């Protein structure tokens, strides 16, 4: 980002010339633009299509921009299935689930790093291996368990099985290990216990890491599909991704692309906005462990 076009050529000791300029465009800007467009255009197409009238979609003569942009497709989606309710459910599940997961991760990571316990290594290993266990494999047994407890079509039934958090614990533990011991020492002299050390020192200095864990958790809770799909069959309890499936299967849903794109926008846009604002944290959280951990 720091270099300009001229810098990029002179920086490597090459003179600025038309040949170099050509090379920078062909080997740099062209593929860069292509990669960006390949990602951007389908999403733009979704947004534009959601604003089009049915006649502009069910046609073989495509136009890029909607002639009379309207929110009719959104209204149609909301009258076909309870979309507002799906949205509310998704918000509830995401907020409650992510909050509890983050708190659990903070407590567990603090215990693993700062509290003495004989079987700490074993517990850490247990959490580490859980990172590798595919959640999809546990769907059937968890369904039987939650159904037996009467958790089908309930918020707690959707939230509970995903609450144990190996990812957040691991990420926070790695961060807590890097904290300088001196800051805890001074609190200790003041006679602070673990509770106060956790909330008055460790958490305040770890806000960026906690934000990373929180954002990654929010994104995955919002997108979670297979579990809510199985555990809900009543429209009033469905989350957005499940509700979108419901919309596809509804009477007016098949091939009603304008309405389906409106539904897709409702699912994708909140995460896109969060990502646009805070992508640095999200990218670092999701690619953690790849290079320097």
């Amino acid at each position, binding site marked *: 980002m720091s270099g300009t076009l001229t810098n990029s050529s002179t920086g490597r000791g090459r003179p600025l010339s038309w040949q170099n300029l050509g090379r920078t465009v062909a080997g740099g800007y062209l593929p860069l633009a292509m990669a960006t467009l390949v990602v951007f255009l389908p999403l733009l197409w979704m947004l534009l299509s959601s604003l089009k009238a049915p006649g502009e979609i069910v046609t073989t003569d495509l136009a890029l921009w909607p002639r009379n942009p309207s929110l009719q497709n959104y209204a149609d989606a909301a009258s076909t299935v309870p979309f507002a309710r799906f949205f509310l459910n998704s918000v509830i599940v995401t907020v409650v689930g992510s909050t509890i997961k983050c708190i659990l991760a903070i407590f567990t990571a603090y215990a693993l790093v700062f509290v003495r316990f004989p079987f700490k290594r074993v517990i850490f290993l247990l959490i580490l291996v859980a990172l590798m266990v595919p959640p999809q494999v546990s*769907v059937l047994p968890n369904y039987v368990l939650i159904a037996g407890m009467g958790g089908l079509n309930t918020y707690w039934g959707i939230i509970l099985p995903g609450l144990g958090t190996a990812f957040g614990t691991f990420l926070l533990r790695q961060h807590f290990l890097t904290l300088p011991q001196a800051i805890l020492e001074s609190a200790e002299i003041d006679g602070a216990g673990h509770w106060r050390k956790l909330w008055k020192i460790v958490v305040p200095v770890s806000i960026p890491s906690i934000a990373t864990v929180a954002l990654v958790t929010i994104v995955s809770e919002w997108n979670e599909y297979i579990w809510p799909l199985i555990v809900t069959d009543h429209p009033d309890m469905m989350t957005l991704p499940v509700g979108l499936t419901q919309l*596809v299967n509804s009477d007016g849903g098949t091939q009603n692309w304008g309405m389906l794109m409106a539904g897709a926008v409702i699912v994708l846009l909140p995460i896109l906005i969060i990502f646009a604002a805070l992508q640095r944290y999200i990218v670092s959280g999701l690619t953690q462990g790849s*290079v320097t951990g």
Partner: protein
Amino acid sequence: MGRSDIGAATQRTPTTTRSNPARLATADAVLPPGEAALPRPSRPRLEARRWNKRTRRDALVFVAFAAPNVLLILLFTYRPLITNIYYSTLDWTLGAASATSVGLGNYVEFFDSPDASAVLGVTAIFTVTTVGGAMALGLLVALTLNQRLKGRTFARAVVFAPYVLSGVGVGLVWLFIFDPTYGVLSWMLRGIGQLSPQWVNDPKLALVMVILVYVWKNLGYCAVVYLAGLQSVPPQLLEAASLDGASSARRFVSIVVPLLSPTTFFLLITTLLSSLQAFDIIRIMTPSGNGTSTLIFDSYLQAFGSYNRAGYSAAISVVLFLALLIMTAVQLRFVERKVHYS
């Protein structure tokens, strides 16, 4: 590298704990004043008093802090692995009160039926092509992003974006693009005088379609991880090779690729694991699994599709889990040795 870091971090724990000045300081409080003035680190006498009042309280704090999370992980992550094995020995309709034990019958049925080769074949094709495709394209994008270009931070974010989006939403967007009548793709094909193929109805093309969309969604992850790897390649090394007359292709093959091998290894493991678990895109784009029944999707369809065959589904889940386990073990055993660590 993630893996080696984990190991290093694990070994660091006891040191951190023992030299934790906070704990030493509180333990000092119960010692005679003269002792407390001694230098802090590593005191055998402190170590000997393992179960004094302070450590007992620490143990209680540990349990209170860690137990909820650990119990949830045991209950909803580990317990299902064992329950699945038990379920897989049953002939059991989901929802039915009783089941009959059939031993390994479900496994025999799966591997005897033509389903097995179809499902395993689709899983293999899907996994290999998505992992290979996302990693190769990701590396290309990373090489582009590694140049000093204006707007590359923006491009990096855009390319990564699909990775954080809901697979259901993404799948729908692409289903519209692939629509044989009203999709953009059919419009483009008509432009060159071609008819759009029936992407969803043709089993082979349906698989191609979900592979393309899955790669589109995941290549940004590979690109960003590869980019971080590329940025850790020392520029002096490349300059020296350049002065020695090595071409850029030669520099790439002889310097960059070997130095990237830890990144490649990390990506191989993480993308393999996630490809084998791919569900959202496949479910929304091809609900009946016509040509796209991977292990995970077949397991879902058997239990929660129209069949309600819980025992059979559990058997497929166990097969999937074993596949994941073996693959991880093989990678750890054989691949890591050949990886270059700087």
